[in-house]
């Protein structure tokens, strides 16, 4: 062995000595100190943890689509989602609130489809949140119109917050300066057209419906403020 090897060997020996020393007593029991790794693993998909809807419900197709997207985001699955939304929009075209729910869903769905990996992560949360709320509304037998409206407005709020986050995200990446950014920045009190490329364009009816809901919100807020004033 040459000197270099000696030096290494010495260092290794001394390290080994530090670790293992010269003790040679009998081993102590170590039954409790092993970690035994269980050999079972589940890969079952999250099968409707918030499952409320019965199996033959009109919303089943939509639910399936939403759950699939939880697992995988692809054009195929998003197309299925959008199809299901379209179907339900047709079915509930006379119910303004349900329609709005569905339009929110559709808007977010199309956004995710368009942006994919560059979509804001919050979009999925909003998608699930809107869906869950819609499911509650559809499945509940005793829900009042007011409660329905209440839930809807909560989701509209979430939708708005998401839009703001997306706008913020866009300002961080200056390369994408489309009209969407301008649209996002307009004040929220005005009734406006949702022409953002970002959220993919709504039809005039959609825009109107959306605007109407905004107006309702404003009126509610004003009413509340007025009530407060009157109480004084």
């Amino acid at each position, binding site marked *: 062995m040459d000197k270099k090897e000696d030096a290494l060997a010495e260092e290794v020996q001394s390290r080994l000595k530090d670790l293992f020393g010269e003790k040679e007593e009998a081993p102590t029991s170590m039954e409790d100190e092993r970690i035994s*790794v269980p050999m079972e*693993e*589940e*890969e079952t998909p*999250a099968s409707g943890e918030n499952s409320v809807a019965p199996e033959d419900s009109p919303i089943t197709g939509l639910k399936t689509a939403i759950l699939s*997207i*939880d*697992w*995988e*985001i692809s054009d195929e699955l998003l197309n299925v989602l959008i199809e299901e939304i379209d179907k339900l929009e047709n079915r509930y075209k006379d119910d303004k609130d349900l329609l709005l729910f569905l339009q929110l869903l559709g808007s977010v769905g199309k956004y995710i489809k368009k942006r*994919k*990996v560059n*979509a804001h*992560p919050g979009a*999925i*949360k909003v998608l*699930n949140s809107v869906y869950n709320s819609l499911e509650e509304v559809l499945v509940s037998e005793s829900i009042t119109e007011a409660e329905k409206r209440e839930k809807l407005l909560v989701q509209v709020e979430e939708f708005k917050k998401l839009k703001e986050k997306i706008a913020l995200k866009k300002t961080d990446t200056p390369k994408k300066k489309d009209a969407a950014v301008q649209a996002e920045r307009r004040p929220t009190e005005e009734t406006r057209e949702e022409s953002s490329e970002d959220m993919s364009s709504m039809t005039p009816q959609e825009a109107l419906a959306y605007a109407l809901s905004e107006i309702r919100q404003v009126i509610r807020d004003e009413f509340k403020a007025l009530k407060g004033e009157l109480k004084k």
Partner: protein
Amino acid sequence: MDYSLSQDQLNSIEEVLQKGLMELGIHCVVLIDMAGNIVANLDNGNVEYDIYSLAALAAGNFGAVSAIAQMIGEEEFSLLFHKGEKESIHFSKVLADFLLITIFGHETSLGFLRLKVAESIEMIEKILES
């Protein structure tokens, strides 16, 4: 399976992991080789996993599952994911010799994570092959 990575490559890999995955809000990301060695790892500062043992088990697990895939006539499985109550874990192959492990909570959607993982892997593969 012999390879060596330069400091630059390791730095670039860490950057990809940070920007593409950590900033998404996941809890921990580890890039290992199939022998169970850790190439790179990042976490959000709130976790204290024994990543060395985790890497050994992950490599073994992935190896075993790959062997099973072959046995049932599959080239490989497209999803290796374990869902926990609070923490979930996802594995994805990088080239032939590496494995990307991500640990995340329920605030992260798996579907979206998979998109991000795929994107990050593409970038990492370029770095590894350079």
